[in-house]
């Protein structure tokens, strides 16, 4: 594919707000995980919670108020993202700028609250509940579109934990076919009981900070986050070089133990980027810290890249931000390119002897030209992205 310029990007996670906060956390080795203290939640687990989302949306956006949209709003307002989109909108016209947003939760936290407050005898939810502006997956994309004043093609992509990686693929295609001249891509996912108790019911949640690739790993730490990027034709200091997508066709909630789908997606991403495995300097792993994911992913990575390429999951820093993980880890990958940094797999003490890949147990400085970022989701949905610096 023709590489695309990433003219702007930003992210918000438990590590902080914006690029500088994330770069600072990475250099100081500060994790965003903390014991959960969510009102009414009885689970003993650590989460990556974003602080300061307590102020309701106001004015014209008041009807869209929910934690998910507050998180999106907070991220849009940092790192000059609004100004960058405004320039693009002025250059191309609002109808020529597309919006693709990944989410798995949207505002289901509001639906949970509406059910708690409902009158079980009544056939309706409380009158304050707004399906379209909070619960519906498209709410995340429509909200971003309205905040940014855009009128191009728009949709939400919801493929569980690969959602906001796949938005880069959809945007690349829309640009290639000429349906738009720029695209805002991103992802937003917020902490809620559905995912906390849901992953708990599958026995996939750790009671401690998650330890990707560790011999003692016992599940994930759930996080929340938002990230956005502006894609355009041309050159910029950061570029999207390739994407690869595949399906496991194996099981709804367990990866193919051989990692065949994951490997096929990595191959497709390399082929689109016109790069060989040896051109990649670092892999940002999906690395959820569940026993099955990390082992299957390692098979796929070592099959394609051998066992020497530096790899790490950043889930020990941010938690697993689910539908936002793709774009959060894309943004972290770009920070690694910018800063020449290979971040370590935080909380990992001793690598599982069954894992053969070169898991980084210490962060180090090194030139980073090309990063490959993995995102895999329930339903066997795989998406792999390749990023690079400017041409």
């Amino acid at each position, binding site marked *: 594919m023709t590489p695309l310029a990433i003219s702007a990007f930003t992210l918000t996670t438990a590590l902080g707000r914006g690029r500088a906060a994330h770069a600072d956390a990475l250099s100081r080795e500060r994790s965003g995980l903390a014991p959960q203290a969510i009102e009414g939640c009885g689970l003993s687990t650590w989460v990556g919670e974003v602080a300061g989302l307590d102020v309701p949306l106001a004015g014209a956006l008041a009807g869209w108020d929910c934690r998910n949209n507050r998180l999106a709003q907070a991220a849009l307002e940092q790192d000059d993202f609004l100004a960058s989109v405004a320039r693009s909108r002025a250059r191309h016209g609002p109808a020529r700028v597309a919006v693709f947003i990944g989410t798995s939760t949207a505002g289901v936290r509001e639906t949970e609250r509406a059910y708690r407050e409902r009158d079980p005898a009544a056939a*309706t939810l409380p009158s304050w509940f707004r399906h379209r502006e909070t619960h519906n997956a498209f709410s995340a994309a429509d909200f971003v579109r309205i905040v940014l004043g855009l009128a191009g093609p728009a949709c939400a*992509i919801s493929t569980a934990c690969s959602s906001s990686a796949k938005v880069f693929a959809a945007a690349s295609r829309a640009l290639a076919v000429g349906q738009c001249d720029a695209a805002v891509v991103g992802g937003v996912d917020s902490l809620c009981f559905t995912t906390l108790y849901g992953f708990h019911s599958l026995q996939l949640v750790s009671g401690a900070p998650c330890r990707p690739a560790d011999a003692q790993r016992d599940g994930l730490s759930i996080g929340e986050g938002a990230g956005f990027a502006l894609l355009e034709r041309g050159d910029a200091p950061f570029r999207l070089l390739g994407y690869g997508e595949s399906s496991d066709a194996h099981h709804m909630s367990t990866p193919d133990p051989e990692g065949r789908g994951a490997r096929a997606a990595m191959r497709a991403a390399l082929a689109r980027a016109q790069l060989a495995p040896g051109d990649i300097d670092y892999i940002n792993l999906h690395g959820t810290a569940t026993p099955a994911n990390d082992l299957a992913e390692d098979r796929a990575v070592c099959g394609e890249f051998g066992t020497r390429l530096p790899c790490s999951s950043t889930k020990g820093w941010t938690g697993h931000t689910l539908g936002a993980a793709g774009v959060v880890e894309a943004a972290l990958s770009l920070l690694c390119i910018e800063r020449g940094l290979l971040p370590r797999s935080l909380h990992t003490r001793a690598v599982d002897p069954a894992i053969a890949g070169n898991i980084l147990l210490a962060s180090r400085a090194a030139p980073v030209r090309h990063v490959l970022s993995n995102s895999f989701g329930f339903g066997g949905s795989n998406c792999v992205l390749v990023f690079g610096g400017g041409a």
Partner: protein
Amino acid sequence: MSIVFVEAVGLVAPGLASWAEGRAVLAGDAAFERQPLPALQPGILPPNERRRAPLGVKLALLAAEQATLGATAAAAQLATVFATSDADMDVVHRLCVALAEPNRSVSPTDFHNSVHNAASGYWSIGAQARGASTTLSAHDFTFAAGLREALIQARIDDTDVLLVAFDVSPPPPLLAARPVPHAAAIAMWLRRQATERTLAQLSLEGMPGPESVMRDAELERLRRSNPALRSLPLLGAIARREAALVHFAVHGGLALAVRVEPR
């Protein structure tokens, strides 16, 4: 933009139980009679998965099976685009009921079925389809967003694509907040090359225009009743073997235009 060919169509809607029935009604050869949906028993799922699959998944897979004409080898090669505004609202309802109880004991099967891409996951397992698969939502405009993505993907990623659009009727109390009165699904096998089976050819156009509607009042009510059935004006043109420029309403008062030519 370049052309994509419709190889086959699948349809499951009240009174339009299959593409064969739907085509006759849409072409004006048979009267429309509102009927309950047929039994949803997609044969493509292994018995274990069929037991676990929720209603929306079975509905989507039934339409997908129709649209792939039993061509299992070809179906395994297709990229897929699933377009659903709300996926399985029955599952959402059960989870939210459980999460409102003091012990918050949710079913692990309900949780993995609650992902928006559950239908895509079950289809890939049943059809052994290992290619790219996207699941998207655009509220009432979901069919147009799915069709746009499928047509683009066919050309840019150089692949044949199976497009499946579906939504179910939410149970109370969600129904009042999202009034979709009944379930429906449509599917289209889209190819890069014409074959002897090709029904029509489609291309994206840039021309704005008012949303296309159904002339028949009952069919127009049906079109508006479910996001997947916003496809009816397009299916009507295919059924009548008519050349047409079909406009779909999208967000913000805008439209997506698709040119249809018979083959």
